């Protein structure tokens, strides 16, 4: 299946999807040293987002979250790409400064955890 979105940060990458229907707060909600989601009650609590194609509706919480993504990229614990329903400021700025491919404005309910996903510019291909 091919889905077309909007480019927030351009890139070409292939990986395994990790999907949640809940927004993510990177500052405080994710451990930048391990990539594990810490937020209590979050669908992904205890799971690692490292090297995953992370599919989630949008970011939330502190704007410091942009810097957390940057730190994760430096630590080697960042997701390999981000797919959003609608990217907001925190994630957009985080993706750009960390150079993590990011697209939004596509139907994220089409993705299932474990799907093999290829991102190429504004298109996500599920195989």
């Amino acid at each position, binding site marked *: 299946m091919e889905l077309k979105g909007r480019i*927030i940060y351009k890139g070409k990458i292939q990986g395994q999807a990790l999907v949640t229907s809940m927004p993510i707060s990177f500052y405080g909600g994710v451990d930048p040293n391990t990539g594990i989601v810490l937020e209590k009650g979050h669908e992904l609590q205890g799971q690692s987002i490292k090297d995953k194609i992370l599919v989630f509706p949008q970011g939330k919480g502190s704007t*410091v979250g942009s*810097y957390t993504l940057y730190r994760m990229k430096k630590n080697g614990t960042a997701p390999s790409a981000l797919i959003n329903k609608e990217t907001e*400021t925190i994630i*957009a*700025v985080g993706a750009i400064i960390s150079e993590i491919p990011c697209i939004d404005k596509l139907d994220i309910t089409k993705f299932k955890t474990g799907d093999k996903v290829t991102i190429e510019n504004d298109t996500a291909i599920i195989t």
Partner: protein
Amino acid sequence: MELTKQEQAMLDGKEGYAVRKSMEILVALGEIFGAKNLIDVGSVQVAGVSYHNLGDAGLEFLNSLAEDGRVKVLTTLNPAGMDLENWQQLGIEPEFAEKQNLVIDAFQRMGILVSCTCTPYLIGNLPIYGEHLAWSESSAVTFANSVLGAKTNREGGPSALAAAFVGKTPCYGLHLEENRMADIHVKVNAELGKLSDWGALGYAIGKKAENKIPYITNIKNAQLDELKSFCASSVTYGAKPLFYIKGITPGAELQKQPDQIVTIEQADLKNAYDNINDDVSDIDFVCVGCPHCSIKEIQEIAELLMGKKVKEGTELWVATSRTVKQLSDKRGYTVTIEAAGGKFACDTCMAVAPLKGRFKALATTSAKGCFYSRQNLMKTKMGSMKECINAAVSGKWN
């Protein structure tokens, strides 16, 4: 978004890494918020200065920008996590101070005026009516939009920095006239006496006009310090960073009175105090200057402290900008305040300093200060300058 040739060249990296990254941020935000183009900004005010909030990740990013990034317009900073000179006396750990200084060094290399204050308009970063800006700090943004009639969105730290390196910001939100129309009429029937009443008013209006632009009527007069306090409070408690006060702020005369109306009665102010004030009588921390004290407020503090001593076991902090502190030095207020045992906290404030667990109960003039101090696990009391200084001297809230 449409870019000029020069903007496209910046996006393509012709001016180096910092400008390219900045353009990527501005273009992405412009696309997200539906901007058609970029507009020139007159000045920038950057938040995200406290190492407490930035951490090592933020510091690393700032260092990477500082390599080739130089600001194109007048740029000042929000408060840092400590007084940059007097940090030891305020109980800041040396490890924290070292990191905080590295943050400031990075900003210094970018060509930013490293004056750290939430009241840039009191120290020479003073916009004019109608000027476009990229400011971050919420009370300063509200003051610029409402009291000065300038135009700015509430920028995050990175987007403000990006605007400084490019000299432009995407044109959306409060930069556009059609988004600056008042959409709720707030009639104030309550009497406003002491300074903290303006904080209480901001709380009441913030809650009743959540995410709206209030058109406020029935206020007879207002002073700078009162508006400064109101700006901090209304936006902290939920309103948009823009309001109009009929007969007082610029542009109010151009507004059509909105049909939706709410009133603020004496009971609403009392309710604000009841919500902000905890049940506590022993005070171990008194902090005034949120937003940073003006010279007039410092004069009042000095007069109230003349011949008195701050109670042992209670700390009094006067938070202000370094520039205003220099005026205070010249007038002799500093000597009076320090002789009484009060401490100056320049360049910083109670919202961004690492204070969690240090104090149990705060007395302050500021509704915003109470909001952030609760996150630092303090009980809070809000009152007039006189009540706060009395608390510092007696260690009690009466």
